[in-house]
């Protein structure tokens, strides 16, 4: 008896069996003609044309699947199945996929420790071109990075340190530090860094009301390189904030009614402006330093009493300022204020309005609410407000956020975390999402560099042996009389001690006592001249007292020392000095260094070196310049001990006898 059901079952099983057979044979067949097999055949053919028979015999036979297993990183990279010449320099310039790895990357990142995908991304386990995601593929979250963005992966291991040979990453990180992104966001790798806008406790006394409005509307309309972003405030919000801020009046400026303003001598003020070297820190007319605010339109911004008080005692009026306290008379301050207010402004701003006693309590309260909601206190200290903490989201693991969960709005970009960060940094409100983040107005390239730096912040934790970090240096604030002078003259705005302080000066002070001669320091501080002819930023003219200069020099020559430099036998023979002079000519030192009027002006002028530098330092510097200053233009000639000593003898002999260095100004 035939059951129709069992018959159709038989047929079904037969069909299924055939299907399985077909699939099985297909698998066998496709494995036999797999991409990587044909690739390996091509490689062996190429190898015979590139290598001579001797090398061929020595070459290890390649065949079968090859892979690099990195248990610590939880990766299996089979890229080397096809990239067979990757470690073989004889394949330099061979067609892909056989070319050897460009550059010297594999020497510093051996493939058995780093594999391929930790740097390049892509699907390491795949063995054909498409599945390895050489190009972006659907459903592949991390296809291979193009060289343009590959530095993001350098940053995964090289955290918070300068990554060698990754300039875009370094620039991105520098931009994050300059812009103070970590004031609002917690960003791994930037812990412990702080960023401050000016404290606002007494802003009611400081600025003109109409300026404040312009600034709040769009800071860049007043100051092109403003670090503050545009908060896209409505007119009502601006009115509120303006009222709230102008009601902040804690530190009363000095009373300048006793000053005879009509007698202000602007020509003297102008001369002072040059003499004090204000432009080392402040930009005017497109030139000058960037440490202090640009002064091009300062007359539109600040009130006269405030400016006068600030010049008299900057640290009382604005305790966190980087500005040093000059030793000036009241008349000089008057002249300087008058020049700044009269000459550096957009047009006739009219008479100065009296300090407003804003009493519109409702506007003040509304402004206070805006101040809190937009997280202004993340950057600006204001006594009456509690610190809001970080108002923005934590950026830990931002590079691993699932692109499918991110909102891209109408932007026609590939949905990746990189592109999301980029667009967000560029136009925070453009992604069809309400955003509290201000628009910083970054150039596209800068936004890309920031995105690249942030794209290196991954969720996955690496084994510690892979991670390169540098612990943040402990703050070193010198105490005592020296400390007071350092505070008064704000030395640490430009110089650093123990990694703490500014970097405007390329000379950290950690071993300055072993570098410079005591007498030179005393004279130089009282009348700082230019050591490097071509450098525009100069030490300001402090009008420092000679006791103060001596205190500083004493401290330097007893505390800020380096034993390795100090222990140097400085008894030179005349023969050594003669040999040094020959070497000076032989090595072509004059290409960069001036001596008198002859020679280049890349490095410092050298004709008074003996008065300026200690022999130990000259020798140490000549022997190993990059140790003391990475990236320096001083070449390392690989001098022998004897040659370094001879050059030191010669340079130390220069200028001896004259106790004073060349004084002030351009030569």
């Amino acid at each position, binding site marked *: 008896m035939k059951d129709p*059901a069992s018959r*159709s*079952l038989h047929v*079904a099983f037969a069909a299924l069996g055939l299907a399985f057979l077909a699939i099985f044979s297909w698998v066998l067949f496709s494995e036999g003609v797999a991409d990587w097999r044909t690739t390996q055949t091509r490689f062996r053919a190429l190898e015979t044309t590139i290598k001579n028979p001797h090398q061929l015999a020595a070459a290890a036979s390649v065949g079968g699947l090859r892979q690099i297993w990195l248990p610590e990183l939880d990766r299996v990279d089979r890229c080397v199945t096809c990239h067979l010449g990757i470690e073989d320099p004889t394949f330099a310039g061979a067609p892909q996929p056989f070319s050897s790895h*460009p*550059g*010297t*990357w594999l*020497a510093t990142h051996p493939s058995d420790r780093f594999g391929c995908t930790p740097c390049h991304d892509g699907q390491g386990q795949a063995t054909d071109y498409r599945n390895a995601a050489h190009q*972006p593929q*659907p459903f592949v979250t991390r296809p291979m990075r*193009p*060289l*343009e*963005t590959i530095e993001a992966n350098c940053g995964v291991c090289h955290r918070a340190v300068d990554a*060698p*040979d990754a*300039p*875009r990453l370094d620039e991105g990180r520098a931009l994050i530090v300059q812009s103070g992104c970590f004031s609002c966001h917690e960003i791994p790798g930037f812990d412990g860094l702080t960023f401050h806008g000016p404290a606002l406790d007494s802003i009611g006394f400081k600025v003109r009301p109409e300026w404040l409005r312009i600034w709040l509307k769009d800071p860049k309309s007043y100051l092109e390189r403003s670090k503050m972003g545009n908060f896209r405030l409505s007119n009502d919000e601006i009115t509120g904030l303006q009222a709230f801020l102008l009601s902040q009046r804690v530190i009363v400026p000095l009373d300048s009614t006793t000053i005879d303003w009509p007698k202000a001598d602007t020509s003297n003020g102008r001369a002072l402006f040059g003499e004090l070297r204000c432009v080392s820190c402040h930009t005017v007319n497109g030139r000058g330093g960037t440490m202090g605010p640009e002064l091009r339109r300062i007359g539109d911004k600040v009130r006269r009493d405030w400016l006068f008080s600030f010049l008299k005692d900057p640290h009382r009026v604005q305790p966190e300022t980087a500005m040093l306290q000059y030793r000036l008379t009241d008349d000089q301050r008057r002249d300087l204020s008058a020049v700044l207010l009269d000459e550096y402004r957009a047009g006739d701003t009219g008479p100065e309005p009296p300090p407003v006693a804003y009493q519109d309590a409702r506007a003040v309260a509304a402004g206070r609410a805006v101040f809190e909601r937009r997280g202004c206190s993340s950057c600006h200290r204001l006594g009456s407000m509690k610190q809001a903490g970080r108002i923005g989201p934590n950026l830990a693991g931002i590079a691993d956020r699932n692109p499918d969960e991110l909102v891209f709005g109408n*932007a*026609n*970009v*590939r*949905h*990746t975390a*990189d*592109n999301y960060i*980029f*667009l967000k940094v560029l136009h925070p409100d453009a992604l069809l999402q309400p955003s509290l983040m201000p628009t910083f107005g970054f150039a*596209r*390239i800068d*936004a*890309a*560099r920031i*995105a*690249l730096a942030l794209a290196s912040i991954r969720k996955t934790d690496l084994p510690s042996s892979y991670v390169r970090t540098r612990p943040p240096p402990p703050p070193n604030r010198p105490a005592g009389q020296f400390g007071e002078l350092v505070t008064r003259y704000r030395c640490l705005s430009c110089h650093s001690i123990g990694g703490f302080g500014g970097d405007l000066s390329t000379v950290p002070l950690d071993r300055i006592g072993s570098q410079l001669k005591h007498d030179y320091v005393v004279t130089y501080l009282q009348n700082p001249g230019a050591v490097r002819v*071509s450098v525009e930023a100069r030490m300001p003219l402090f009008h420092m007292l000679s006791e103060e200069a001596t205190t500083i020099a004493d401290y330097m020559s007893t505390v800020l020392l380096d034993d390795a430099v100090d222990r140097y036998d400085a008894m030179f023979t005349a023969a050594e000095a003669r040999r040094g002079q020959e070497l000076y000519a*032989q*090595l*072509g030192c004059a*290409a*960069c260094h001036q001596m008198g009027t002859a*020679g*280049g*002006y*890349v490095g410092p002028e050298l004709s008074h070196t003996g008065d300026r530098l200690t022999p130990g330092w000259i020798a140490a510097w000549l022997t190993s*310049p*990059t140790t003391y200053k990475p*990236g*320096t*233009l001083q*070449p*390392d*000639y*690989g001098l022998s001990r004897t040659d370094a000593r001879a050059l030191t003898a010669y340079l130390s002999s220069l200028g001896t006898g004259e106790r004073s260095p060349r004084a002030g100004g351009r030569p």
Partner: protein
Amino acid sequence: MSRLLRRACGVILVLPLSLTAGCGRRATPPSDAVVDAIRAEERVGNLSYSEGQGKHLFAQYCATCHGDEGHGDGQNASNLNPPPPDITTSKNARDAAYLRRVIAQGSAATGRSPLSPPWGRSLSAQQIDYLVAYCQALTRTKR
């Protein structure tokens, strides 16, 4: 029963088809904004990655004398005798091995004046390779 099987087969067949259809939906591929921004900045004069890196290094270490574009017109060039050569027209600059030697060991190593110093101890081999690539790019573009 057979109907059931047929239906199952149908589902199995249709499912992958619809998935592939979903993938191919987008007509113009979307751009990669970060890569485009970096390219727009760095691929001036069609420089490759290595050449672009070399350009940075050149600006830092070489341009003071050799000039930004390698014409030998840097701000310090007037102080030098002999003056720095114009790299864009130099025959030697086409020779990678020569360039590598002159950068790493200084011009004295090639029997010329000692005015161009050796950078072999300050720069990594990688960095010197980048510089070589950029110098060769300068001869290629001949701006």
